[in-house]
């Protein structure tokens, strides 16, 4: 991990990775969307509404996946003062918030015909809403300081505090009797959904993951370039002042 603390090494690696992850996103998204919209059967109870799930479930996975990654990066940033880890958390936050919003909105759209309501205050929905607020709070906190270092460090502590919410989201459907159905893919004894639905779901999950990787690399590169420009500006200003 410490190998990548050097931004130059990261930049070289990322130029290698970026086209692959971007290409994988496009291919997987096209295949996944075709499979989920046309190539899979409608559900016997939900009819065609089930197709919302191929967006909703991967988005929900990603919202947790991104947050967990950000928290791990935050820990690395605080413990080893790893410069890229700080930047990673900052770069990933808007993407994670986007996934969470997609998850909430698609869930709501699915709930309207299926549960007969746009929103219920059950444990899963409430805890995901809190996750969304945590993302927003993190982004607001990071940008609230004049010194960007201070902002990312404060944000790191907040990310680690907010990690208590992740297991609550994951197990909320098991701990409480809620309207939201329990997990049917990741559970003991294998998935309980048919492979004709499981495959499009996994393809979509792959597409979302590679999308995340591609965008986070892009954002990290932008951030590094931004820092470089700032340093150059400061040094030019410094030269002007002394010379």
């Amino acid at each position, binding site marked *: 991990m410490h190998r990548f603390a050097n931004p130059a090494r990261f930049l070289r690696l990322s130029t290698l990775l970026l086209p692959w992850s971007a290409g994988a996103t496009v291919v997987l998204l096209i295949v996944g969307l075709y499979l989920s919209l046309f190539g899979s059967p409608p559900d016997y109870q939900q009819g065609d509404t089930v197709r919302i799930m191929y967006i909703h479930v991967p988005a929900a996975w990603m919202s947790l996946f991104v947050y967990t990654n950000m928290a791990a990066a935050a820990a690395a940033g605080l413990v080893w003062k790893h410069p890229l880890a700080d930047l990673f958390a900052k770069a990933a936050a808007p993407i994670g918030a986007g996934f969470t919003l997609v998850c909430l909105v698609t869930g709501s759209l699915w709930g309207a015909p299926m549960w007969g309501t746009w929103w219920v205050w059950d444990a899963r929905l409430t805890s995901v809403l*809190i996750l969304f607020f945590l993302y927003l709070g993190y982004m*607001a906190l990071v940008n*609230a*300081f*004049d010194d960007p270092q201070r902002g990312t460090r404060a944000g790191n502590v907040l990310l680690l505090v907010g990690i208590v919410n992740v297991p609550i989201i994951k197990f909320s459907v098991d701990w409480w009797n809620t309207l939201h159905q329990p997990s049917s893919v990741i559970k003991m004894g294998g998935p309980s959904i048919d492979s004709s639905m499981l495959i499009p779901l996994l393809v979509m999950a792959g597409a979302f993951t590679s999308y995340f990787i591609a965008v986070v690399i892009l954002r990290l590169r932008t951030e590094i370039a931004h820092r470089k420009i700032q340093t150059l500006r400061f040094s030019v200003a410094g030269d002007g002042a002394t010379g």
Partner: protein
Amino acid sequence: MNRFLRLVGRDLRLALRQGSDATIAVMFFVLCVVLFPFGVGPEPNILARIAPGVIWVAALLASLLSLERLFQTDYEDGSLELMSLTALPLEAVVLAKTLAHWLVTGLPLIAAAPLLAVLLNMDGAGFGVLVLTLAIGTPILSLIGAIGAALTLGARRGGVLLSLLILPLYIPVLIFGAGAIDAAINGLTPRPHLLLLAGILAAALPLAPWAGAAALRQAVE
């Protein structure tokens, strides 16, 4: 321990001599609750139904009020840096200041709550549980709030940011606090809610000063 108590005593003396924090929190608490009969109408049944939630939400907001200044004044006049240099660990400093904050703003809320419950026509069965939940819950609010206060130290628009960060984390406390009172009023046992609330307190008591101290170190560095 002696240093710890001295720090609590110092903060209490400061708060009592300046005098405004405690009274402002309680006045805000009372006014906030009193607004509800005007907003939803003076129908006693409706007020009795929503009383636990209203009192708890008002208590949350009231405890937020003075949080911004928990470390702010000490940070600005430099005493926070001195405190971080003393033999007392920074975690203990955070705990001491949080304790003082709770004694100044939390305790008066607990004392005022039964009066507000009468105003809202709350069922008599809930009074004991109301005081109990607030007694367990308000320390949690101060502890979680201390993390937020430490994080937003020196930030632009710190106060607004503080509420944005802290209010989502307050939600579990609100759910179990109001849930316990509702259970007691409806003739069920409030025990599970109270146990969960106490569990949150037991987790927050060691973890929150730790996180708060980590955040303070970033600020005074």
